[in-house]
């Protein structure tokens, strides 16, 4: 506790406060998404009407209503692959920033942003498609837990895309020299976290029955 007032710019660990802060934030986000994933797993089987989490089977409700499969695995797989590739692109952008290669930084960061935008677009299309098929936030517990989980993740991706666009503009104006590459590293850590959360959500929501 004696160190509590000692740390100003220097820290007792010798580590940058901002990097420790983003890791602490990411740790708290693990708990946030754990509650949403638990909520989805608990509720995805406890519903009796409306479309369900099916990609191939036609489902018949106890009241005799027939619901077509709504999940489109190929589209979501493409979105997943692009999100994974975006993680590769952003580490290459970070590598460029650390070495002072501005064109490399701009190119890979731009590719990362494009992948993020595609993912957000894919999710917007999917949500619209589900609503047209009769699944909304209020239809059943599957709909409520699905839209809450994937909606919060999509919001995180959107925030990440906006953050990366601001980083790209900064880099374009020459404000991300190697000495300030940590700014991009912090944004990249957030982006990777959004990616690893999807690594869990994808099989849990779309593949496991």
């Amino acid at each position, binding site marked *: 506790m004696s*160190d509590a007032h000692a740390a100003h710019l220097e820290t*007792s*660990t*010798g*580590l940058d406060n901002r*990097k*420790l802060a983003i*890791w*602490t934030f*990411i*740790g*708290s986000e*693990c*708990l946030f*998404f*754990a*509650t949403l*994933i*638990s909520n989805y*797993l*608990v509720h995805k089987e406890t519903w009796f009407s409306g479309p369900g989490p099916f*990609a*191939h089977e036609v489902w018949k409700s106890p009241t005799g209503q027939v619901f077509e499969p709504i999940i489109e*695995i190929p589209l979501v*797989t493409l979105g*997943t*692959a692009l999100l*994974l*590739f975006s*993680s*590769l692109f*952003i*580490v*290459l952008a*970070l*590598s460029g920033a*650390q070495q002072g290669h501005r064109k490399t930084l701009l190119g890979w960061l731009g590719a990362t942003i494009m992948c993020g935008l595609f993912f957000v677009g894919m999710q917007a299309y999917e949500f619209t498609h589900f609503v047209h098929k009769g699944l909304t936030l209020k239809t059943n517990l599957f709909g409520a837990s699905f839209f809450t989980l994937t909606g919060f993740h999509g919001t995180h991706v959107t925030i990440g895309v906006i953050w990366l666009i601001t980083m790209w503009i900064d880099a374009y104006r020459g404000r991300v020299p190697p000495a300030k590459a940590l700014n991009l590293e912090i944004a*990249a*850590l957030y982006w*990777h*976290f959004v*990616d*690893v959360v999807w*690594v*869990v959500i*994808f*099989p849990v929501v779309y*593949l*496991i*029955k």
Partner: protein
Amino acid sequence: MDAHAGQPPAEHAHPTASLYAKIGLILFILTALEVGLYEITYGEHAGAFGHSIEPFFVPLLLLMSAAKFALVAMFYMHLKQDHRLFSGVFVFPLIIATIIILSMIALMAYHLAFSRGG
């Protein structure tokens, strides 16, 4: 922690671009395997082989998912090279998060079994 106070942070050089690309390739292959496994087991053309591997479907999928998670965290998020404090700050909540998910699954499984049985 006091023993480390004042020492320089134990951060090392980040991986090379070729290693990043190799990790990316492995991640892509694992994703393709996940979807392939799903299609073989539950897809439109799932056959007898699909039914035979059905009991292993969820464990295999979770294993591949965990492998992807670990690869991104270790190499892309640099936990393998960076200071161990970052790993601690990330892994400790991650363990709690896993316990929360498993506890909820166990609780609901027990609840469903109990309500069906009683």
